[in-house]
């Protein structure tokens, strides 16, 4: 199965209880991966409030994932 590198920030890091992980998964898209993680960690935020970054670039939810991809789900930002 493809191995995905995940990094977690802000409340997602708190809810996952970790900052990063390598995860083996059979899901095909970023959207399916987020649903898998929601089930695993109980992420409260719905996908409508999240953006997806694959290999440090914003990508659509339909983005397909391949072995070695680095994925970050971006919760609402609060800089400034």
């Amino acid at each position, binding site marked *: 199965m493809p191995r995905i590198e995940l990094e977690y920030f802000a409340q997602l890091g708190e809810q996952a209880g970790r900052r990063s992980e390598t995860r083996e998964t059979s899901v095909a898209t970023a959207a399916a991966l987020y649903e898998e993680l929601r089930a695993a960690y109980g992420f409260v935020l719905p996908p409508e409030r999240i953006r997806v970054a694959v290999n440090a670039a914003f990508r659509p939810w339909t983005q397909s994932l391949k072995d070695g991809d680095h994925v970050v789900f971006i919760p609402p930002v*609060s*800089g400034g």
Partner: protein
Amino acid sequence: MNRFLIADSPVDIAALREALLRPGAGGFCAFEGWVRQTNDGRPVSGIEYEAFAPLATSEGQAILDEALARFDITATLAMHRTGYLLVGDIAVWIGVSAPHRDATFKACRYIIDEIKARVPVWKREHYVDGCAEWVECHLVG
């Protein structure tokens, strides 16, 4: 050189300003965002900022490029801090130089608004009562 910096320690603001000096620029405007002592009426002891640095840097750079294309400005730089900041510390700094003043104000305003909306940086307010919370202020002042 990347003109949008994510910095995990204090940055020399005078050096940033100096980097924007140009013979053709007749005006300069800076915006500084500071750590305030209250949030929603609750006393704050400090704010912890975290960033997804590679994307924060590229998205920040894209915002500065948009400002250069959109306004009649000469040069611009910005910096956002990460780490634990105390009340009064500079969390974000934006500088713009231009031939005339009007564009510097407009560009500064555009850049801070876009940073707050788009750049992957998050703040966690630490309150004097010992609580700490991730803030969700997407598109809110």
